[in-house]
């Protein structure tokens, strides 16, 4: 009970400060919107490739860009905890009776909320550009869930890294180094069947791939739910793993002050 209310307070605090800097949400959306508009136009005819198995590239691309945005927002979340450490906010919380779990859980909760907001904005944009989803509301809910299951574990890892290295440069470096490869080693932009075999093999171990393929399957209608559930379960396992790492990083931070 205490953990939950405290998490909501911490999340509320994060979200409030984001709403007060709307340019931040705008900023995190510039890149995906560019992908959606440019790739959507540039690769329009890529669906004609034999084996691509999609009728409209924008319909194919939109869920990919939604998941990619979740991935990037998660990757950058560690930046916030560094400025809180430097400002002394984290230490102020740690000398108070606030739930320790809520300090991380609250951040992840705010991450999930931001992912939902960003996803709706991108879905609306995709819809305007002509994306249509036979899977309807259920499909969209699966897309939201699978995006959250990417953004929150990645955010947990980003927070863990931030707590361990305590330098903004390192979080920037690691994010740049990992996020784009994770995107391109997945079917965000390109159908699995037309990928080179080595990328196809690498993608099998990539949470971004699990998330995008689950979302697309649910959005397409006539869904193979076994296929979707398997991928969502893998994402949950990934989340548990990430939460474990974040908890350990948090403990070692506490031991180091």
């Amino acid at each position, binding site marked *: 009970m205490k953990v939950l209310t405290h998490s909501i307070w911490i999340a509320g605090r994060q979200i409030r400060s984001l709403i007060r800097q709307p340019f931040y949400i705008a900023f995190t959306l510039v890149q995906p919107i560019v992908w959606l508009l440019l790739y959507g136009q540039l690769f329009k005819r890529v669906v004609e490739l034999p084996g691509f198995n999609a009728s409209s590239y924008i319909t194919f691309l939109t869920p990919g860009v939604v998941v990619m945005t979740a991935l990037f927002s998660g990757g950058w979340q560690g930046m916030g905890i560094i400025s809180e450490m430097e400002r002394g*906010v984290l*230490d102020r919380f740690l*000398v108070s*009776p606030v739930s320790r779990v809520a300090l991380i859980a609250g951040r992840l909760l705010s991450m999930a909320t931001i992912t939902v907001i960003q996803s709706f904005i991108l879905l609306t944009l995709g819809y305007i550009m002509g994306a249509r989803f036979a899977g309807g509301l259920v499909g969209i809910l699966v897309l939201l869930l699978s995006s959250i299951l990417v953004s929150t574990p990645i955010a947990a890892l980003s927070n863990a890294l931030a707590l361990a290295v305590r330098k903004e440069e390192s979080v920037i470096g690691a994010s740049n180094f990992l996020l784009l490869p994770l995107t391109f080693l997945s079917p965000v932009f390109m159908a699995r069947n037309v990928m080179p075999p080595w990328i196809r093999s690498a993608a099998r171990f990539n949470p971004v791939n699990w998330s995008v393929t689950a979302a697309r399957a649910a959005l397409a209608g006539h869904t193979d739910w076994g296929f979707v559930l398997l991928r969502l379960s893998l994402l949950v396992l990934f989340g548990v793993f990430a939460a474990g790492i974040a908890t350990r990083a948090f403990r070692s931070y506490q031991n180091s002050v």
Partner: protein
Amino acid sequence: MSSQLHTPYAIEARDLVKTYPNKVRALDGLTFSVQTGVIFALLGPNGAGKSTTVKILNTLSRADSGTARVSGFDVKRDAGRVRFAIGCVAQKPGSDLAASGRENLTLQGKIYGIAGSALKQRVGELLERFNLADAADRMVRTYSGGMQRKLDIAMGLIHRPHVLFLDEPTTGLDPEARAEMWDEVARLASEGLTVLLTTHYLEEADRLASRVAIVDRGKVVVEGTPEQLKGELFGDAVQIDLLELATDGRAGEVLGRLEGISEVSIQGPSIRARAQLGATAVPSMLAALESSGLRVASVRVNRPSLDDVYLRYTGRSFSQAESQNGNGNGSHRGGGR
């Protein structure tokens, strides 16, 4: 499981030892007690171990060995209860820049279990008291340094703690804001709060605290009221600066032979000594130095200060200790050790 010990002491620290992973021994058997309702100052240069002590007492950090009780609760076993009993104002602000003063106070209050109209009232009260009422709904990023520090103290007081930790509360403030802060701290103590103040300003400890412990290299070297500490020193402090370094021991030798002069110490070109009566001792000291060929640049005679107490118990002057600890100083500030 919890056991609150009823003692006249709000804080009791015994044999605290703390070594950081980088092998820096921050505390080396530090012991002191603070009576309920007084302002107690830990005085020492940066890196002496004051902040580490505060972090162990406020449950942020853990000692490798030794015990500590705050408000009767053991800081290790009863950390949860200690947290409700204490208020903290750290060196770093800890307020949320993207929230207003009122929002910062409100969240802080909620964490301590205050809610509803009681919370609203308490927040309003503190804003009023710290002259922040006009700025209450402005974002903290628009506050001046002095206003942010006041908000910090208000946040530390929201739940009416028994013990308040003030870790270098006036560092980085301009003289005007510092004077205002001193008045505020004095007022807190008059209301019955126990305050543990750390400072590297001698003047601050002298002025605010009813008891002072001088900390050096992770230990308390001496403790008492400022008057007691100064009273233990006999006579006036005489400082003579030479035009050249007094390296060959000549100065010490000639001054040591003089009547009524004691505790001669020499650091580079400056000589410090105690004299029963400074005004009468100076001429004979100057004559002695002159006759052994040492040229004098300046002479000062002071009534004893805490700086002299510090010198006496640690064997080095305060400013010298500051610069010696200066190497670790960058990480001290940055890492908030």
